């Protein structure tokens, strides 16, 4: 191990060395997401901006695709980070895992370059395979889709084989099963059919089930590991609650898919299924407040890594408000008829993704940098702690501003375009030009710039935090008691 405060790969095990590569690309793609989001936001206010050079449709696509991929890189990196520590044995097939990383990264670069270089053209079978599959949010061409599945399967092999060889913990069991679903469900997004209802039916398997089932379970596993590491919570308790959480999530999350099937031409019984689960889905989330209070009282929030813990706490709040409050406000079919696909959805999507996933990956970034610098002190009164506090403040402020602004625009859209105008083309433009919509977009832009400032500070902080520290980290790991 090298000196405290100095970044050195000697401080990391094999899996962690691979993890920091994933984290680095993940952070870069996070930056790309912010940049293309800003460009798309400017184009909402000035439609001529970069018109014909970098169209809104492309900026929006790269903004969302970058988010999906950076979160995926973050999740994969986080799992590699904990793998050797959790299993007690070196990663099996680490060389293959490293090769996989470079192929995956190269494929992402090629896909983005193709997006930017071929922005318009005919949509045919060749373009589905080579340029753009055309499905919103999962536009990656078919070759890249297959590549993603192969990469996730290699990742699965690394994880499953390592746990099989070493210690197979409760976290390991949930993680391994979840990765099967992570690779398998993505296949549903490649199903080609000319029937738009069937196409949407399968598309939602990726958009909803990937995100609200497999990603949520993955975050549950990361949270379990994070709580053991940052707060010293006992493994037995964490794993018991992980099982409870997975049961609740699968109980309500899988058929919660029904609220996406309301208006795509699926049979009427989906209104019953979707309505039932939409109404009851937030109950476990609310009930978990009891668990949070219980654990906070028990452990008194003593932590070895304050920034990571702050982001983990942020995850609890962000998930509650973004997924719970913002979701339930417009999920019943009686109101969803008017809000579906408006800026309401964008408002919910921004806060839910940030709250549920971004926060957790940022917590892992801080866990990683702590160990990369030789397990340096990152508790309270950390030298230069203003940077992580201000970046957190700016990121949250920017996100809340964007969420509220989009909420106002979406509210106006659901009334003017949907309820009054009847969703026709004229009504669409009437809503887009309404002062409330435009003002919402102006405020969203201000929120976007604030968020971007928070991102720059975050990147700077991740490069420098712990550099001037000479104290070793506080030990709170339960397993070291």
């Amino acid at each position, binding site marked *: 191990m090298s000196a405290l405060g100095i970044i050195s790969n000697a401080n990391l095990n094999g899996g962690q060395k691979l993890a920091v590569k994933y984290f680095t690309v993940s952070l870069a793609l996070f930056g790309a997401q912010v940049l293309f989001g800003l460009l798309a936001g400017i184009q909402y206010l000035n439609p001529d901006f970069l018109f014909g050079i970098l169209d809104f449709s492309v900026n929006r696509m790269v903004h969302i695709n970058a988010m999906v991929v950076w979160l995926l890189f973050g999740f994969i990196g986080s799992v590699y980070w904990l793998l050797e520590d959790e299993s007690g044995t070196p990663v099996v097939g680490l060389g293959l895992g490293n090769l996989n990383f470079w192929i995956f990264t190269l494929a992402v670069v090629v896909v983005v370059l193709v997006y930017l270089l071929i922005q318009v053209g005919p949509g045919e079978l060749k373009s589905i395979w080579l340029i753009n599959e055309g499905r919103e949010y999962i536009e990656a061409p078919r070759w890249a889709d297959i590549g993603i599945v192969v990469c996730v399967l290699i990742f699965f092999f690394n994880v499953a084989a390592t746990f099989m060889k070493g210690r197979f913990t409760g976290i390991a069991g949930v993680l391994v099963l979840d990765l099967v679903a992570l690779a398998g469900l993505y296949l549903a997004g490649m199903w080609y059919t000319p029937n738009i209802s069937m196409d949407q039916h399968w598309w939602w398997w990726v958009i909803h089930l990937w995100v609200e089932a497999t990603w949520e379970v993955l975050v549950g596993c990361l949270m379990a590991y994070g709580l053991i590491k940052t707060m010293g919570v006992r493994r037995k308790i964490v794993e018991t609650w992980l099982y409870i959480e997975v049961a609740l999530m699968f109980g309500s999350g899988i058929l919660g898919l029904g609220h996406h099937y309301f208006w795509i031409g699926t049979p009427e019984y989906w209104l019953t299924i979707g309505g039932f689960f939409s109404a009851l889905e*937030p109950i476990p989330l609310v009930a978990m407040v*009891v668990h949070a209070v219980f654990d906070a009282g028990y452990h008194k929030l003593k932590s070895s890594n304050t920034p990571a813990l702050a982001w983990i706490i942020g995850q609890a709040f962000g998930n509650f408000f973004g997924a719970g409050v913002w979701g339930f406000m417009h999920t019943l079919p009686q109101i969803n008829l008017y809000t579906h696909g408006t800026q309401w959805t964008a408002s919910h999507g921004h806060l839910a993704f940030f709250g549920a996933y971004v926060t957790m990956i940022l917590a892992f970034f801080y866990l990683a940098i702590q160990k990369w610098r030789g397990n340096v002190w990152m508790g309270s009164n950390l030298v230069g702690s203003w940077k992580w506090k201000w970046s957190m403040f700016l990121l949250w402020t920017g996100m809340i501003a964007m969420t509220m602004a989009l909420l106002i625009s979406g509210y106006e859209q659901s009334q003017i375009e949907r309820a009054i105008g009847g969703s026709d083309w004229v009504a669409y433009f009437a809503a887009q030009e309404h002062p409330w919509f435009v003002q919402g977009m102006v405020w969203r832009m201000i929120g976007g710039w604030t968020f971007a400032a928070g991102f720059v500070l975050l990147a700077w902080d991740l490069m420098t935090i712990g550099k001037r520290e000479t104290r070793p980290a506080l030990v709170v790991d339960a397993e070291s008691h």
Partner: protein
Amino acid sequence: MIVEPVALANFFTVFFSAAMVILTGAVYALLFAYSRLRQRARLMPLAYVAYLGLSVSVYTLAQAANLFNDTFWTFIVGLMLLGYFAAPHVVWHLCVATHDQESVDGHKPHDEGNPSFIRP
């Protein structure tokens, strides 16, 4: 099952009452847990006041979203009230049970508010 769309005049009521269902539910859960954790019985009535607020929010939502016009949706309203009421109790029992097991395993609790000694 009938889905009767929300009237334009009721949009805000639906959004606001739906948000209040979740928020009052969280306040109920928070006060319920804190009251038991710190053994402050005087907070428990406040928890049930929050639950009352939740019930009013559910009723307002049901009225504004036309949920009482159909048996299925009326049943869902009943389930929501029952679910939000019972869930904090169930989770509390689970918390106590898991931490009791921790004490049996020989791990010593480290603060005076240790919930493993608290019985529901």
